């Protein structure tokens, strides 16, 4: 419920702590939307700047963490839209109206991190290797194929296998879209 950020004693010290604690995570989050790391960093910088400058005005019923994630996501979507950087209006923007698990329940961020790590670790060995190269090293499918001496088709298959597995493992953190049908009355 309503909690003014300034009530949380957001002094310089706490601000610095928040920055160090979340900057990399927020950049990763932003990069999932805008892909480019420099743009992602810039967006996160602006969000922190605003948090500090407007700390008296900002109220959030959740927590500073969830405020940060929500703001970063919104800025990313605006950025994609304003710079016409989206590849597909439908896939990049129209389907991005979900709230991520950490926005809904930020108390569980560290729990979520553990769960993600476990989910990736529980992938079959080859599958994990391919997925990590793509997701974390940002290697192209072609480069992964060459490095591991496998075909691009195999890379594709491993990535989709990994995604299916992650979707299953992380399902409690994925907000389900409620397809509301007005059945009543």
């Amino acid at each position, binding site marked *: *419920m309503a909690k003014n950020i300034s009530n949380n004693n957001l002094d310089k010290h706490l601000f610095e702590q928040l920055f160090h604690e979340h900057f990399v995570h927020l950049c990763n989050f932003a990069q999932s939307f805008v892909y480019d790391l420099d743009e992602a960093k810039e967006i996160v910088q602006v969000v922190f700047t605003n948090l500090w400058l407007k700390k008296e005005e*900002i109220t959030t019923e959740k927590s500073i963490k969830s405020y940060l994630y929500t703001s970063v996501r919104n800025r990313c979507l605006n950025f994609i839209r304003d710079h016409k950087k989206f590849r597909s209006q439908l*896939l990049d923007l129209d389907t991005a*109206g979900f709230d991520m698990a950490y926005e809904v329940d930020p108390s569980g961020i560290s729990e979520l991190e553990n769960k993600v790590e476990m989910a990736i670790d529980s992938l079959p060995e080859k599958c994990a290797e391919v997925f990590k190269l793509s*997701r974390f090293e940002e290697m192209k*499918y072609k480069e992964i194929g060459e490095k591991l001496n496998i075909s691009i088709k195999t890379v*594709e298959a491993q990535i989709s296998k*990994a995604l299916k597995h992650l979707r299953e493992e*992380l399902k409690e953190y994925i907000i389900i879209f409620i397809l509301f049908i007005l059945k009543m009355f």
Partner: protein
Amino acid sequence: MKNDNNHIDYARLIGKYLAKEASAEEITALEKWVAESDENKDTFNKYKQSWILSGINKKNKKIDVEREWVTLSSKLFRNRIEPTPSPKVKELQPGIPLIFRIAAAVVVLFAVSFFLYNFFLKPGTVEMMATTTIETETLSDGTTITLNRNSTFKYPKKFTKDVRKVELTGDAYFEVEHNKNQPFIIESQNIEIEVLGTSFYVDSHEDNSTVEVVVNSGGVALRSDKENQIILKAGDKGIFNKKTGKLFMEKNTDVNYNSWNTKLLVFDDTKLAKVVDKLNEVYDTNIEIINPEIDNYRITVTFDNMTIEAVINILRETLDIVIEKHDNGYFISGE
């Protein structure tokens, strides 16, 4: 996924899209598939969310947090020490003819008067603000409203029209007096909540991405425009997504949604970290768990209208942990 009909493996396609490997043709094919049904859209969304979640732990060697911090802090904190007025404004001001400056002053004067009139003098409208304490008010029709901290509520002194219209920013619990000839309508951020007589909770802060309504008794209509409305009954939760403009409904699962108001808290095998979050919110205090090992302690307990001191004592004794009081809260340190 229904992907066998035309032999396209959509999971593979989604993977390629997310990894930026999909060709223009593949993107078109995927778009077509996503647009085909809500089920497909939902599947796509789940993959997309999994993809985003999976990146959260990425150790990004290309980010130098220390350097980023220096950039930010030099920008934010140097300005604070030397608050110099923006030079651009300074240069411009002498160039503005006097007549425009007078005109501007007149406009400002009008705007301020209008604002003051609306807020303080407009007959019959009362603005109620809760900042650090919870406020309760009974309206002229007998309706009671409990306004949570950081919330604002506007209502007429007397309901004279054929509807009872009020405005809310923030969150509040309502017990609306029944009157089927004069519906009670709450306006809040592009959404209308219409009721005849019922009790329910509304969470509508400007910074939230959603407006949420939880119904305790009776029925409520949640309306974003003429065509779009959902009817909520006791136990339902209605959600309006401000970004997409969509309305959703689900069963309310949070038994403590109204605890800030009732001071009744029910925890069933709940993690201590979550209990502490809720207590901080309900008692507007600052309890901190210093030893992270304790975060995962679980507790089943009901606190019914207790003081924070009594709650702390129960936690201390039930979990056998050390809790110390400090200036504006408590530290939970260990066994």
